[in-house]
């Protein structure tokens, strides 16, 4: 694989700029060209609360756009990735539904056939680019850092459709952390949810979930936490202070996208990876391993 279509969804290109910066900085270094396509829109996942058909239409629409260009998709947001996976699966199993969706797509001059693959960073890095290649590119191994892995619910569930890793015992992120020289202990709260999806209407409960997980990570003695999800990153990083207030804990946990850590290990400048945009004290990471 030498090129892939980049599908960023909504949250990444409108505020999670560090994630986008790091993706655009790091993947070409590993030999992967990223292609932006014309006219993408929301994947529809956030609208599922309101009307499932909107999710179906929008996910199919985005896949049809990439298909037209003959490009596989990189969807670095697990929420998008899950919607694409589910809609793809449903249309494969239900030709009548596929026909119906296509009758709508036709009005936008599009057609969904189901001929392309889509990846998240987790499987792209672990299975496509591969651990060996990543190890070969490491210039500054992140020795001495013990980083907590946070996968994100939508990245690993549900297991009746293809997901990038196992739903109850995912390990690829830990393997990727080890590939760049870091450690990653197991912790009991590893699969706990970040709470992002009820921030809109139940902010206190949402921030309690965020705060409890961060507190567990801090008490375990981790040097930081890594994520692969813009929603989880926003909760653990940008909302860390309010999450701490909500659970009555003084939190100081560096929270960093895995792709940013990978960039540091490849010797990239912190600013090129958007590290100045993280709100949590990520400086603590570099002082510890002296990047």
């Amino acid at each position: 694989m030498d090129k892939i279509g980049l599908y960023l969804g909504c949250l990444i290109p409108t505020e999670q700029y560090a994630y986008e910066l790091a993706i655009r900085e790091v993947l070409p270094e590993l030999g992967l060209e990223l292609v932006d396509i014309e006219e993408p829109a929301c994947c529809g996942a956030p609208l599922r609360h309101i009307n499932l058909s909107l999710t179906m239409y929008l996910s199919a629409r985005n896949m049809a756009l990439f298909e037209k260009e003959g490009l596989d998709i990189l969807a670095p947001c697990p929420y998008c990735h899950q919607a694409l996976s589910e809609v793809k699966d449903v249309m494969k199993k239900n030709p009548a539904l596929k026909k119906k969706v296509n009758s709508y797509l036709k009005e936008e001059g599009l057609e969904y056939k189901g001929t392309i693959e889509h990846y998240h960073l987790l499987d792209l890095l672990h299975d496509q680019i591969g651990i060996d290649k990543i190890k070969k590119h490491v210039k500054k191994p992140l020795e001495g850092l013990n980083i907590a892995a946070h996968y994100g619910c939508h990245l690993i569930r549900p297991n009746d459709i293809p997901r990038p890793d196992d739903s109850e015992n995912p390990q690829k992120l830990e393997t990727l952390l080890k590939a760049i020289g870091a450690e990653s202990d197991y912790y009991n709260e590893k699969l706990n949810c970040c709470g992002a999806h009820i921030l809109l209407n139940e902010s206190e409960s949402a921030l309690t979930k965020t705060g409890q997980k961060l507190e567990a990570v801090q008490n375990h003695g981790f040097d930081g936490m890594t994520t692969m999800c813009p929603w989880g990153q926003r909760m653990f990083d940008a909302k860390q202070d309010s999450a701490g207030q909500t659970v009555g804990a003084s939190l100081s946990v560096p929270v960093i996208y895995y792709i940013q850590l990978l960039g540091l290990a490849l010797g990239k400048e912190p600013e090129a990876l958007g590290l100045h945009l993280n709100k949590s004290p990520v400086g603590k990471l570099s002082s510890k391993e002296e990047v």
Partner: protein
Amino acid sequence: MSIVDLTSMAEPEGNQQAKVDEIIKGLREDLSHDCYQCGKCTSGCEAFILTELEPHKVMALSKSGFIDELLNSSEIWTCVTCLKCKERCPQDLAPVDVIFALKNIAVVSGKQIDSGYSNMLQAVLGTGFIQSPKEVVDRENNAVTRDALGLPPMKGPAEIPKLQQVLMKAATETLR
């Protein structure tokens, strides 16, 4: 139960109440045969720990026809969509999908929903995305934009009215 059972995009037009009844009937048929109230969904539910949400009760109430009670409660809106209930149900049921269906029914029946959700829908209809690019601040409190960071301009749908039209059609034909 899957996403398809709850959408029926393949269905022709009908009136709104008939559609609601149909979704409910579909729900109840599935549930009455399969859910044996073991409570495994609730034991691992990420929302249950903090809110009143008990997915096994949602299943029981839907099965017994207490749909209106569920639609009027705020519980169904506290599901964090962690999907653990769907993952772990020994009967391959998906309380999370039942909860999504209930929320969709609440919307189509004209129940008051949190403005956050309707704002999101308006944003997608108006721009194609749930929000537009924001100015953010870095750790030193300097304001930055995509442009200032050297990121390319964000691409989006060129013909918004067209997209809007198709989305409205897709949504109403399903739940009407």
